[in-house]
């Protein structure tokens, strides 16, 4: 069976070891492992001939990269202007209350992660919540329970 290191090595060989591949590599590592662990970042650094702090610096600069494991279901509340005007704050507060966590956290049982996003560009349907990559528009604070139950099938 593959160890995490050998699985990651196989992934890395798809890229030439040049600096401009750092961000594309971090994307695929996160897609494969759910987040960027210190061990993975160290391996990426070694592969590209960079220091670990360089890789860490880039990983923490960009909002897409996550340094902690993510919950089974990931809810992202849009905080764009139109969503703000249309009550995204209340939607977020309701989700925080229901899940008992703050934005940026994961429930202790690992079931849900709650995040905010600058803007998904679905402003015409504000307020918007994206659940596991699927956009739900015109979300009412009272209706957030349905998002959690996975009742937002397209």
């Amino acid at each position: 069976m593959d160890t995490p290191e050998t699985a990651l090595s196989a992934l890395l060989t798809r890229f030439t070891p040049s600096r401009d591949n750092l961000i594309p590599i971090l994307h695929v590592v996160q897609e494969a492992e759910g987040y960027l662990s210190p061990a993975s970042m160290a391996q990426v650094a070694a592969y590209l001939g960079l220091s670990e702090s360089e890789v860490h610096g880039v990983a923490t600069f960009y909002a897409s990269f996550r340094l902690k494991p993510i919950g089974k279901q990931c809810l992202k509340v849009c905080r764009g202007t139109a969503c703000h005007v249309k009550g995204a704050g209340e939607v977020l507060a309701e989700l925080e209350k229901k899940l008992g966590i703050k934005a940026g956290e994961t429930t202790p049982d690992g079931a849900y992660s709650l995040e905010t996003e600058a803007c998904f560009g679905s402003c015409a349907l504000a307020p918007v919540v994206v659940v596991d990559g699927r956009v739900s528009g015109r979300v009412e604070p009272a209706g957030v329970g349905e998002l959690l139950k996975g009742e937002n099938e397209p």
Partner: protein
Amino acid sequence: MSLNILRQQAEAEWEAVVHPSLPQIFIGTSTCGEAAGAGRVRRAIEEKLVELGISATIHRTGCLGECWREPLVDIIKPGSPRITYHSLTPEKASELIADYLVNGLLRPDLALGVWGGGYDGLPALDTTAMLGPQKRRALRNAGIIDPENIRHYLARGGYRGLERALSLSPDEVICEIEQAGLRGRGGAGFPTAWKWRLCREAEGAPKHLICNADEGDPGAFMNRALLESDPHAVLEGMLVGAYAIGADRGYIYVREEYPLATRRLEIALEQMRDSGLLGRDILGTGLDFDIKLVRGAGAFVCGEETALIASMEGYRGLPRTRPPFPASSGLWGKPTNINNVETWAQAAYILAAGAEAFREYGTEQSKGTKTLSLAGDVRHTGLIEVPLGTALSDIIYTIGGGIPGDRSVKAVQTGGPSGGCLPASLLALPVDYESLAQAGSIMGSGSMVVMDERSCMVDIARYFLTFTEAESCGKCTPCRLGTRQMRSVLDDIVAGNGKATDLEVLAHLAQSVRKGALCGLGQSAPNPLLTTLKYFREEYEAHLDGRCPSLVCSALVHFEITTEKCAGCGVCLRVCPSEAISGGRGVKHVINQAKCTRCGQCLKACPMRFSAVGKIAGRAVREDA
């Protein structure tokens, strides 16, 4: 090699779509359509077709811009024009299939309009409120063709701009863009031809060309919709630019948050390679050019061109001082030209239709049309394209259909975090680069968020500064600390701890950041604050007096129960989380203001028939104190 054979095939294929022998069904599948339930509608239609034994072709299309009434479905029945239906649910879609395709009922209750003229009592699409006044050029195919089918694009004149460009000299192409008066559609409005020429004349090889698809302004979705609806329009513009500039390599830097746009671009690039439109010796003209897709990773600052370049090179997205400009030293130190998504699509239009046609619309200094995203407190939210110089009021009231609930406009936010909030008194303002800048805002990439009287301008200024503070890359002090300081003063004001000197402090900070910040994002970060201070100063003053007139800032409002209206039903008492409500069954309720946390649960809970709870501007008078 030329496109002739492919174009003939494409035209034949398109002809069979628009004058079909079988019903043709088009389903809007951009992000807005999908979010509104296009997937469920498609399944319902497929099931109904099977159930009724009808053979039909289903196509996907992009965004017609009527996002507020997605999902949209178009139907062409043999011998009939294309009819657009809106706001469909799976149930309505099933009914429509049976009613129209089997029984010939047009279902005017579900119809939006008919393409190419009125039909049997249904209105022509180009006379409907939202689409009628528009001039769709960058969006010429959006919502019409299948964005994943290059033949649809070719059949509607796609790549004719490229063919014409290749028949001219590179300098003539740049002159054509110059005569058109095209200015960058991403924000600053820099003349596109100048930029192209600078890069063409720059020393060094290879030369790079970048499409900036890092649409980061919250409230903006023009570029997403265009890429999802007609990716080839953008890619054709890039090929025209590559030829004019003499660029060897192209890149599209796409926001991480736009997975569908990314997928459609990947498909489009593959089709271009298969058709001889990318790679070596394009169309036998000796032009070598390829385009690579680069995914962003969620950083607003990467919309700034030097930060974008740093990001593409694998670094933190930090801007640097200019000069040198990217035109002489950009990606990997080589001459680089960066344009926004829409600029590329407009460039392709100019080469196909000619500079004169482009100049038909616009103002003296702002030529052509502009895509705008319309959102917020407006009836018709969506994606539009109008001549530059169109008045804000026409956009909001005619195209946008006015404000829901017959409320009034308080402000229009243009240009995102780099723009400003314009008051209702300026609604006659024409939307062009100069007029918006003069009013203290900017065109930006074209986001427009309408706010009615329920939005608090101090809260909005704080919202934008919270955003720019979080997105500040941290490289220069004025932006890093200035945005933080402005936000913290605004925090105090909305929390009711504002001081008389705060407005002066804010204005001073704003000017310092504007003058001192390194990049355009920092320099423009104070704009939301400055415009609200300029046009809505009385709201700031009200906050300093302890009142939020729009009832948004919870520290500056309070709740009261009107004794005459209260029935003593006990509902509010039960929902109050802080036990601030007294009374009981049949005993009128009273809010203890000292205990009240102003969460508003009582207001939501009070039954409509009583409506006894009121939200009132200003702090409560503490009788207990």
